[in-house]
Structure formats: structure tokens, C-alpha cells
């Protein structure tokens, strides 16, 4: 019994001494060496880009750590409204109801356009279709067209893939492609659209399933799927998405990518955002397959 008690007390002492050490070291750190953190939540479209920026920025300024999380544009903006995050990433602009909720919570959202993105329409590599008009894509996704043969493809049932409703990509697609930019249009996604939780899911299903059609940000398209050329209507030329076609406003399904802060940012957050809008960070934008806001 004595020996066991001795061991128990020794263990407790060791564990406690670990605690003591921590408090000692924290009083030794001077404020100059303190690591500050900027938190960044939101769009899954932006998450890889935000991570690349965060890593590069940390290389340049090692005492600033930036944490990046995904979850969807809706998640990021909700976090900003609840004052849980420094910067919210969004692949769609903030809605009026969200601005209202933010102001009720004492938050004043400030918008920064940090990059541009094109939405690519993807199909299986074996699908014979190469080009579609916006009207056709809208009809496919709203359920009016249900078989590939109706638009010149094989006799297969169309399987529509989409991101979840909390994704900015989803909302942008709804407003600009299904509703074709008309704010009075009430068309919805067809109820049998598959809402997949990630871009990886969409790519995996499209790569494997010849019946599938999906959409996603240009930065997420892999060579395993085929990108469709899109035209605003059947008399215009069909354009493939790329950095050039987005910057020259030729590709019809393009959007701005945003970062939102609570009122005008100061200090490290302001410096970070200024760095993002400068040519060095915009070069990273091109590397990841998005479209820079300035020519790097």
C-alpha cells in the first residue's frame, strides 16, 4: 500500500509540475514576440486560396498566424454576424437580410473583392455534349429537361449535381444561371438535384457517372472531367472558362470572390487585406486556377 501511494503521489506531482511550468513561461514572453492570430472562416471555394495566402503571409511575417476554415459562405457570414471571426470569406455577396442581422448585432460588414472566379459546368469525359446555352443549363437544373437526348446527347437520364445550400457557389448558380440574373424569377433547383457536401464529391461522381452534370468553381476542375463551353444564348459564341475569358467578360458565368470584415479593418487585419490585393498575392490566385483582380 505504501509503495502504491508513493507512485500515485509521484504521478500527481509530475502532472502538476507540468502546469506550473506553463504559467512561468507565459509571464516571460514579452509583448513584442507575441503571436497574433487572424481567423478566417467561410467559403469552401475560397478555402484553398485563403490557405495558400495564409501560408505565404506567415512565411513573410512569422509572428502572425492565420487560421483558415471552410464551411461555406453562409457559415462564414453567420460567424461574422455572431462576431466569431475576423474575416469572413464568401463566394457570393452578403444578402440584405444578413446585413440587417449583422447591424442588429452591432456588426458593420465591410466588403472587399479579393479575386474572381468562373463557374465551370462539368460533365463526364464520355459525354458527347460540348456546349450549352444558359437557358439549356437552367432548364436542365430546374427539371424541365430530364434526358440527355433532348439536347443532342445519348439516351440517358440526367443526374444533376450541386453543392449544398450553405454554399455561395450554390446561391450564385441559383441566381445567375437557373434564374438567369432575373430577381423576380422564382425557379428553384429541381427537387431531385443531388446536394453533395463537397467539391470533391461532385468531381468524383462526374468522373465516374456518364449521366452526371455538375458545376463548380474553376479552381476545382480536374482533367478527369470535361468542361462545357457556355453561351448566353444560341446566337452567341460558346466560350470555355479561363482567366482570359473571365477578365475580358466573355465567359457568362463569372463572379467576384469576397472577404468581409467588421467595419473598416485596422492593424494586422488591414495589412493582410492590403497584401491580398497586391500583385504578389494575386499571382497565387492565378496559380490556383482563379482569376486575379489585377494583372500581376
Amino acid at each position, binding site marked *: 500500500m505504501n509503495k502504491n501511494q508513493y507512485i500515485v503521489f509521484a504521478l500527481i506531482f509530475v502532472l502538476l509540475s507540468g502546469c506550473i511550468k506553463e504559467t512561468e513561461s507565459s509571464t516571460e514572453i514579452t509583448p513584442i514576440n507575441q503571436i497574433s492570430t487572424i481567423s478566417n472562416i467561410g467559403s469552401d471555394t475560397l478555402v484553398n486560396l485563403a490557405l495558400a495566402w495564409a501560408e505565404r503571409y506567415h512565411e513573410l511575417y512569422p509572428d502572425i498566424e492565420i487560421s483558415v476554415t471552410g*464551411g*461555406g459562405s*453562409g*457559415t462564414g457570414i*453567420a460567424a461574422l*454576424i*455572431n462576431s466569431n471571426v475576423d474575416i469572413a470569406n464568401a463566394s457570393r455577396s452578403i444578402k440584405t437580410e*444578413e446585413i440587417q*442581422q449583422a447591424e442588429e448585432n452591432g456588426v458593420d460588414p465591410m466588403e472587399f473583392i479579393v479575386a474572381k472566379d468562373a463557374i465551370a459546368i462539368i460533365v463526364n469525359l464520355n459525354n458527347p455534349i460540348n456546349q450549352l446555352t444558359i437557358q439549356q443549363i437552367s432548364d436542365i437544373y430546374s427539371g424541365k429537361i430530364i434526358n440527355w437526348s433532348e439536347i443532342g446527347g445519348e439516351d*440517358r*437520364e440526367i*443526374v444533376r449535381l450541386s453543392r*449544398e*445550400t*450553405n454554399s455561395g457557389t450554390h*446561391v450564385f448558380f441559383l441566381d445567375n444561371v437557373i434564374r438567369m440574373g432575373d430577381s423576380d424569377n422564382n425557379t*428553384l*433547383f429541381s*427537387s*431531385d*438535384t*443531388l*446536394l*453533395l*457536401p463537397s467539391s470533391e*464529391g461532385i468531381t*468524383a*461522381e462526374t468522373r*465516374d*457517372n456518364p*449521366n*452526371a452534370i455538375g458545376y463548380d468553381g474553376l479552381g476545382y476542375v480536374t482533367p478527369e472531367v470535361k468542361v462545357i463551353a457556355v453561351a448566353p444564348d444560341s446566337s452567341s459564341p460558346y466560350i470555355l472558362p479561363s482567366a482570359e475569358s473571365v477578365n475580358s467578360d466573355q465567359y457568362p458565368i463569372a463572379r467576384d470572390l469576397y472577404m468581409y470584415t467588421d467595419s473598416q479593418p485596422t492593424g494586422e487585419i488591414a495589412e493582410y487585406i492590403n497584401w491580398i490585393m497586391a500583385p504578389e498575392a494575386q499571382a497565387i490566385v492565378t496559380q490556383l486556377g482563379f482569376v486575379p483582380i489585377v494583372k500581376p
Partner: protein
Amino acid sequence: MNKNWKEFFLNWLIKISGYSAIIFVVLIFYFLLREGLPAFSEVGISDLLSTRWYPIEDYFGILPLIGGTIIVTVGAGLFAVPIGLCTAIFISEVSPRWARDILKPMVEALGGIPSVVLGFLGILILTPYIRHLLDLPTGLSALGGSILLGIIALPTIVSVAEDALDSVPRTYRDGALALGATEWQTIWRVTLPAARSGVLTAIMLGIGRAIGETMAVMMVTGNAAVLPVKIDSFFRPVRTMTATIAAEMGEVAKGSTHYHVLFFIGVLLFAISLGINIAASTAMFKQRKRAERILS
């Protein structure tokens, strides 16, 4: 004097720990109700019972979600119960001692696999296979979800049923065999009916596990909120209540209508799980009393 004080203190500590389980459940239920009941006043029963679920445009019909959960759970039951029972019978009645010592731990190991890993394997292997095998438009369907949920519920069913079968006294089997019954007749007509309540408990616990499963179904069922009323619907995408909460809870602003409706769905799930667990434990306690009566 010291001893009595220690006794009292330990007694009190154990009582608190025991009651705390009940208190936690009650508190959770209260919190869910508090956040979920406003859904009735904000949305109204008839809208809640409509058939379109599209929360970002204020369509809050939860019937497709309830239907999705039911069809996937029923499918999982159809898959897991026969296989689980047969496995349990094999392990406890038919297999030799050495095989039993290998099989039981392996079934437990199957139960230890994280469900998200199974979901991942489901997307990569199971769903393309289902699509090829049954010539479906897509493998992301209630069928895929059911198979995966069946695999997840299987270890629970096998474990508990096997324990129930094991606890049937040897005298039952010896008596049947002495009267000239074959081994199968003994199992089917004597042992299994004697372990009836334990086996029922096993089935209900397995199904309770299947109802609450989130990650695996979210990755594999396609998440399309369609009301699954036809037989065909089993081979088409569905959306479960658990996947809805998981996918959408991140984006809701606290206190919004969507938030309340999601909590209401949580209340429903909680009530169903609680009901199944209460039924299962009542059955289990009944079995003990019967066994005690017969043996004494």
C-alpha cells in the same frame, strides 16, 4: 466517525453521478424543445408538413426528410437484421470454440470503424458498383445508404443478440436434444424463442444506431429532398434528417427561422431515438425477470 463521513460522501457522489445521466437527458430535451418549438409559430404546421425542403427560399417542408430517414432505416433493417441474427446464431450456437474466439472480436472491430471512413469507402467503391450492377442513373441512393447503415448497425445487433442467445441456460438445449430434436430444430424452436426479448433489444438498438447515423448517409445518399413514396424511390437519392442538420447547422444565424426548424428536426430525432431505447430497455428488463422466474 471518520468512516461514516466517508461512507456518506461516497454514497452521495455515486447517487449524483447516477442521477446526472437522467438530468443531462432532461436538460438536452428541454434545450431542444426551447429552440425547436418556435418553429411551430414561425412556420406553421401545414408548411412544416409540405413536401418541398429548400430552406434558403423559406420552403420548410420536413416530410421528405422524415421519409428519407424512414426509408434508409427500414432498408438498413432489412439488410442488417437477417444477416446479424444469422451471424449471432452462428457465433453462439454453431461455431466451434476456437472460431468463436476469432469471430467475436472481429465483429467488435467492425463496430469500431469510424462511420466517416465507411462513408468514404461508400462513395469510392459501393456507389459506382451499385450503379453498374443495377443500371441506375446514379449510385448515390437510398440503397447505398441502407447498405452502409446496415454495416454500421450490424456489430450492435450481433453483439447484443449473441449475448442474449448465450444467456439461454444450457438446460434448454440439453432438454431439446434429449427429446430427439435436431440441432437446427433446437436453435430455431427452443433457443431463439427463449432469447426473444434479448434479440428484439438487439434489433431495436441496431435500428436506433442506424437512425442517428449522420456522416455515412450524408456522403452516400445524395441528399436530394424527394418524398420517397414509390418502390422506385429506394433506388433514388434521398435526404435524411441527420444529414440535413449536419449540412445546414453551420450556416444558420442564431435565432432565425431556419435555426428553429433545424432544432425541431432535432427534437423529432431525439424523440424517435428515445422511444426506441426505452422500448429496447423495457424488453431487456422483461427478459431478466422471466429468466429469474424460470430458474428459481
